[in-house]
């Protein structure tokens, strides 16, 4: 303030009001004042409303008994569990469906993006039609479609659809065989891990050899040999065995195996198919962003197609693809909250829905839910900034 007053005195002609600094401060005070007034107004109203409804605030409800069931949980949970456990179940379910959805959407999305650029007319056309249909229809509608129109109209338990490998599909959900490895199978897993490590060593060695002698080594084949054969031989020699527990009809339902409720299947299907269309566009844009001159330069230097893609095109395309790809991942995670509409018990459904209804602690529940999503998006943007800083092309 003193500094500004001093500046005020030195150029005598500037009137007080026309000094941009003073004006700036004035505007900021006005905005701050207005916001503060607004916040106080809301706080007073809220307090009055809560008092009238006879409600208190606080987070102690977290440690009272939830008293409702959740049909799909990753951790032990019963109606005698506390609200914080219900919260955790919801959060884990959100993360589970998001993680699997991200993997599927990424594969399908890259496939779609590449297919849209295919020189094969019919392949490119099919991919385009898929993308244009899927991304112009609301996700919620697609979830309803998969849940109510497809999965819920499947045959009942008695007429279940049966697929290879003991897979069962009916109104109640999707049932998969559960692998039950015996003790010797640990050796196979160890063999697999050792094979991966060995392959990494070979890869590093091959790189050094290429640099020192110029000779190439078939790293991809080594991978296949190590990662397939080593565990396979271990399997055969140790006589390890994997039994499968197949879902079986018992009474009115299937028991055993891995049971995926239709809510989960519909949500996973909807999220993956929807996000894949957007990822496909991201991938396509990333590949198109690599100047055609790069391809020509690589070709004129004699690069084969595989090397050209691996060494020149993909590293450049990935710089363009990764940032929007990460925000698609974040979108998928946020969109998983639509599960509330079809009853998959993820964070919004369990916490913002049931918990809020039962406890009436609107402010606390909304605050915590928003905090969770805010954290997820902060983590994502921290990653994105790190990645951008790491791969940014050096310019003048």
């Amino acid at each position: 303030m003193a500094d500004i007053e001093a500046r005020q005195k030195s150029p005598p002609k500037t009137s007080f009001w026309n000094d941009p600094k003073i004006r700036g401060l004035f505007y900021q005070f006005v905005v701050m004042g207005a916001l503060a007034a607004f916040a106080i107004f809301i706080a007073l109203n809220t307090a009055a409303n809560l008092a009238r409804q006879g409600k208190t605030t606080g987070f102690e409800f977290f440690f009272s008994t939830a008293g409702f069931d959740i049909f799909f949980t990753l951790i032990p949970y019963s109606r005698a569990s506390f609200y914080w456990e219900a919260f955790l179940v919801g959060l884990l379910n959100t993360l589970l469906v998001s993680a699997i959805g991200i993997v599927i959407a990424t594969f399908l999305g890259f496939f779609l993006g590449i297919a849209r650029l295919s020189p094969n007319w019919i392949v490119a056309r099919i991919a385009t039609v898929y993308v244009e249909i899927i991304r112009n229809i609301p996700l919620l509608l697609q979830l309803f479609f998969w849940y109510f129109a497809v999965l819920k109209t499947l045959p009942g338990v008695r007429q279940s659809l049966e697929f290879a490998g003991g897979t069962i599909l009916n109104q109640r959900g999707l049932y998969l065989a559960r692998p039950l490895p015996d003790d010797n199978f640990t050796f196979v897993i160890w063999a697999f891990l050792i094979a991966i490590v060995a392959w990494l060593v070979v890869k590093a060695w091959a790189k050094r050899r290429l640099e020192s002698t110029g000779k190439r080594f078939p790293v991809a084949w080594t991978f296949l040999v190590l990662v397939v054969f080593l565990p396979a031989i271990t399997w055969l020699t140790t006589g390890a065995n994997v039994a499968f527990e197949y879902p079986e009809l018992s009474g009115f339902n299937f028991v055993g195996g891995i049971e995926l409720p239709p809510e989960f299947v519909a949500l996973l299907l909807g999220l993956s198919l929807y996000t894949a269309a957007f990822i496909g566009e991201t991938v396509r844009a990333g590949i198109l962003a690599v100047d055609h001159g790069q391809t020509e330069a690589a070709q004129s230097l004699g690069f084969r197609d595989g090397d050209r893609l691996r060494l020149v095109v993909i590293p450049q395309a990935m710089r363009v693809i990764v940032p929007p790809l990460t925000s698609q991942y974040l979108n998928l995670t946020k969109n998983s909250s639509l599960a509330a509409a079809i009853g998959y018990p993820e964070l919004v459904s369990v916490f913002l829905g049931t918990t809020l209804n039962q406890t009436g602690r609107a402010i606390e529940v909304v605050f915590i839910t928003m905090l969770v999503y805010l954290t997820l998006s902060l983590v994502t943007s921290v990653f994105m900034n790190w990645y951008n800083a790491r791969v940014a092309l050096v310019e003048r």
Partner: protein
Amino acid sequence: MSTTNATKEISFVREEMLPEMPAPSSVVGPVAWIRSSLFSSPGNSILTIASALLLLWIMPPLYNFLIGNAVFIAEDGAACRVEGAGACWAFIWSRMDFFIYGFFPAEEQWRVNIAFALGLVLIVPLMWPELPFKVVNALAFFVGYPIIVFILLSGGMFGLTEVPTVNWGGLTVTLIIGLVGIVTSLPLGIVLALGRQSKMPVIKSVCVMFIELWRAVPLITVLFMASVMLPLFVPVGVSVDKLLRALVGVSLFSAAYMAEVVRGGLQALPRGQYEAAGALGLNYWKSMSFIILPQALKHVIPGIVNSFIALFKDTSLVSIVGIFDLLNTVQASNSDLNWASEQQAVTGYIFAAAVFWVFCFSMSRYSIYMEHRLHTGHKR
């Protein structure tokens, strides 16, 4: 033949210009096209055959379901319950009024029709780049039109019967939420974007926090928040209309996204434009409204339209907080026992999807068209 032989004589002059020769069939014509775009390599041929088989597998049943075996005219669901019947379009047709107007009283539905027609009259010239009076047109659409629609639909004045918002529904409500979202999010987004660019730390950080908070959370939490917390925020005794709560949530949410689009446009403008505006002696608001914003907004029209598409799709989420938008009317009708059949739900969703798709796809075509226009404009 024009042979040039460097060994003996380098010098060569063409006597007669060669005419353009027709391309051989290996380059043009259907055979060349088929070879280059379908069978250019063994791998490509396999892909082509696999894709063709896929289409053969999908298309005939799809055609039969949608058209071939579909039931177009029927009194009730009996015809649709027949074995092998396709989509039950008769069901959609019988509920069409509900899908469009919701619970709006039948004798007052002309008011909604007038609102639709007026919107069309205002929006077509607005999207047509060659037509003049853009500012007047925009003002009419962004300010006048919402007021007229509100008076027309809610009534209670000018001799119109009052229709409470709980009776509004169907496509009408979907379009209203979309319209309100567009009309409020654009100006709010511009203000937020300018605030984020501001040199005043308080204003800048308030805007950044607002934008980032809304962008971090899913719309559904915003809608939940609007429906459970908004009533707590207002003075005791004041009740907030359910539709209004959803509108507030949708507007604030999409304003944050719009702000980022506008910011992109502001950042893309060359520094020279800001300097030129300053050199002309214009103050902040004048230079923004006459020089900077018109250019920035023009540049990001495709981005703005894309946010509108996202917003329009997001309107379907209001069905979760119990508002009867198009999706919710379809969802409700799907349990209509009169029309109960296996295909009832599928038919309903396909209809709703088709409606949303037509709106979103035409908006995205428009955005591509504008992008094209802007780019060619740059080249000149």
